[in-house]
């Protein structure tokens, strides 16, 4: 580690794959939009929210002509990753194809989104891009939304993990540092429904060859991926942990 990164700019985390997020001193809960530029297809991943739209948009513009974006992937429907979509539609005067689970497609129109949907569960959990590159989708129900779906890019071996592997931390860096597992636990203990459900879902990742995990909150994991998977598999979580507090 130890490299100096300029967080005021988009950061290329892999060939043609960019982090378009932002930093905020006083926030423990940052969001991470990403972008895959695959030539004929450009996929925006978890684009972000209303208050950060302008920052996000200027970073987007710095890496591609925004008009080239044709797909948007969202892992679920939360406002921190979806409310920027109608603003983007308006700014570019165009619509997109949104890659997500059917359960999410029912909720997204309530944000005023006009784009069409590609329900990944209706298409064999995959999408082949024009270049032949394949995106795979892995279902992670109830972690934390019933339709939660994460995306794996076969070419880069990056897992775009939605809320999974996200962290809650004021001591943020783009790439996970020494104590990131603790930041990750702090988030998951509150947002994940139960140890059994989390373990069942996270175990699905073991058959993938993952080089990097890029979550929608917190830091990117690029070393010791297995250690973080194990940490989530063994995490005690769920509201019943607070029994007796009410």
């Amino acid at each position, binding site marked *: 580690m130890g490299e100096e990164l300029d967080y005021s700019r988009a950061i290329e985390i892999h060939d043609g794959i960019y982090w378009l997020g932002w930093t905020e001193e006083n926030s423990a809960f940052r969001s991470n939009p990403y972008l895959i530029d695959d030539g004929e297809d450009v996929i925006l991943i978890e684009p972000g929210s209303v208050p950060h739209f302008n920052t996000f948009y200027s970073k987007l513009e710095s890496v591609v002509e925004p008009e080239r974006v044709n797909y948007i992937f969202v892992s679920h429907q939360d406002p921190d990753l979806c409310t920027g979509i109608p603003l983007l539609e308006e700014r570019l005067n165009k619509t997109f194809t949104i890659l997500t689970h059917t359960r999410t497609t029912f909720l997204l129109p309530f944000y005023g989104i006009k784009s069409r949907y590609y329900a990944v569960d209706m298409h064999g959990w995959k999408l082949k891009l024009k270049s032949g590159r394949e995106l795979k989708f892995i279902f992670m129900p109830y972690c934390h939304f019933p339709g939660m779906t994460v995306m794996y890019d076969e070419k880069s071996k990056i897992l775009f993990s939605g809320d999974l592997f996200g962290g809650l931390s004021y001591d943020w860096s783009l790439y996970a540092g020494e104590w990131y597992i603790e930041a990750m636990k*702090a988030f998951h203990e509150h947002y994940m429904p139960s140890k059994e459900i989390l373990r069942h879902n996270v175990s699905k990742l073991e058959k993938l060859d993952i080089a990097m995990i890029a979550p929608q909150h917190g830091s990117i994991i690029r070393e010791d991926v297995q250690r973080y998977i194990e940490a989530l598999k063994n995490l005690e979580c769920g509201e019943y942990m607070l029994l007796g507090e009410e």
Partner: protein
Amino acid sequence: MATYRDALELVIRREFGVYGAEKIIDFAAKLGITVGRNGNIISTPPGKSDRELLVEFMNRLREEFGEVSVISCRVALNSFFMKNNLENPL
């Protein structure tokens, strides 16, 4: 047998992740607790039980860092007390 000192180390390590090790080591020092780089407690002030220290640590943490500091380890602490049959002093 798990103890209140283990609970305090759990909190310290969790806050390392949320606020960074440096800040938490400095904060603990103000309470007379010496903490090592891996979140272990090296020494505590005389005359206070680990249980009392845990309560003081959490109260002062809330005052100094705000609610998120308490929320970020609340589930873990509950789970720890339940598992180890320890009374929750918080």
